[in-house]
């Protein structure tokens, strides 16, 4: 396989995978929604869950994007320093988005700022967004794909707290987002919380937290405890599906953390809507593909 052939193959796979993730939710999201729906007793909440599940069946049957807002496309990469196509990734991922937009079809969601026009291609300055982690010595490449919709991006918030406010302040910050903007962001939500020093560190971690599987926990026992406390607590608020009340509010709460400067606690919240269109794909150096976010892949 020449380099050109390899790039073309990877582009093709990524275009198909991105289009596919707009039509089928990942396994963990589907399972969790079924689990929450089964526990709901209110007729209104039950009927909303039934509509949600019928929508996913129809999307698959009719081969259409399940939600009209197919988001601005974001990629979170863990790329080995020895991966042979590292340098080609920015251009090939952009090309993959253009192709997926035509084939799926995806909505044109890239508006150039200041000049304020829709590019009509679903790509623009910084869209798709690429977030890199280079892993020294590895020769494979892991990619999380994400469709960042308008509704679920809107509640995003970051702030630097004073240490005196402590994790109590973090708790209040997260809960306030839930009952204000979270309500309209299509609950049940996946809640990502980032904790570190400054806003951009916290914000990036809060988004990476949304790439983690539902039901997984932070390796730090105290952080894991806080994940459970927040999950149970937000569920007790009872936002229900679409914010119209019900037994639960969230698909889960994931916290990602780093060390902090002694003078500050940076905190950020990001949410994923119930239609959490996240994909995870792994390429080895020969471009053999493993997809572990979706069990039934048919493209």
């Amino acid at each position: 396989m020449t380099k050109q052939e390899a790039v073309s193959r990877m582009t093709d796979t990524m275009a198909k995978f991105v289009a596919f993730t707009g039509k089928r939710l990942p396994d963990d999201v589907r399972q969790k929604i079924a689990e929450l729906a089964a526990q709901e007793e209110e007729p209104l909440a039950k009927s909303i869950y039934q509509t949600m599940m019928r929508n996913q069946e129809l999307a698959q049957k009719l081969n259409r994007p399940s939600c009209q807002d197919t988001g601005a496309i974001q990629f979170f990469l863990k790329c080995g320093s020895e991966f042979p196509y590292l340098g080609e990734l920015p251009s090939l991922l952009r090309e993959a988005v253009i192709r997926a937009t035509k084939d799926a079809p995806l909505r044109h969601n890239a508006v150039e700022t200041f000049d304020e026009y829709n590019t009509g291609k679903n790509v623009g300055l910084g869209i798709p967004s690429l977030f890199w982690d280079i892993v020294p010595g590895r020769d494979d490449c892991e990619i999380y794909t994400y469709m960042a919709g308008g509704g679920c991006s809107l509640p995003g918030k970051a702030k630097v707290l004073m240490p005196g406010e402590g994790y109590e302040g973090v708790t209040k910050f997260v809960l306030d987002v839930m009952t204000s903007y979270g309500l309209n962001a299509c609950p049940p939500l996946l809640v990502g919380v980032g904790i570190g020093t400054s806003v951009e560190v916290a914000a990036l971690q809060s988004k990476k937290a949304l790439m983690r599987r539902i039901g997984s926990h932070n390796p730090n026992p105290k952080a894991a405890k806080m994940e459970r406390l927040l999950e149970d607590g937000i569920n007790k608020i009872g936002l229900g599906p679409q914010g119209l009340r019900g037994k639960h509010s969230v698909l889960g709460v994931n916290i990602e953390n780093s060390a902090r400067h002694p003078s500050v606690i940076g905190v950020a919240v990001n949410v994923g809507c119930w239609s959490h269109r996240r994909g995870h794909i792994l390429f080895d150096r020969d471009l053999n593909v493993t997809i572990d976010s979706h069990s039934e892949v048919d493209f």
Partner: protein
Amino acid sequence: MAEKVLTTPISAEDLEDIHVGDVIYLTGELTTCRDVAHRRVIEEKRPLPVDIKDGAILHAGPIIRPLGGDQYEMVTVGPTTSMRMEKFEEAFIRETGVRLIIGKGGMGEGTMRGCRDYKAIHCVFPAGCAVVAASCVEKIIAANWKDLGMPETLWTSKVRKFGPLIVSIDTHGRNLFEENKVIFNERKDKVCEEICREVGFIK
């Protein structure tokens, strides 16, 4: 919980027995209408090119597939955040005589007044269920203000049993989302206290 199918044209009497929390469906004509269309009607005083008196609008930006000529197919059409239209909606109801407004999430005080005084309701279509919504569309019968681009064009469709639509504002001055917010905030304060007792990690 009442369940009812409204058919356009809708009269004020048709809405009398409908209350927040009811689930209803719509049969007849439905026109997508969002940000710029509201601004044109209210701020620029331009008449809406579609007669929606006693009719229904949907806050939405669909994915449309052109079929050639004046034919279009509705691929997916889910509701967008209604709150963005709050600034205009009271006057919009008064000017157009619209009876049914469908969108996502709640609306505010102005829309509540408009619905109460001019007899209209606001309903929520479950967001993210854009294929279900598209499957309730029989055909697109008109496209107006196409200069606004695909998401903002006024797409008028013939729909059959479009729903479920959850009534969030009724003609009696009730607003479901605002009522829920009060409950959510009370619960939140209690939850916050409980969690804060257990996260004193800085010692």
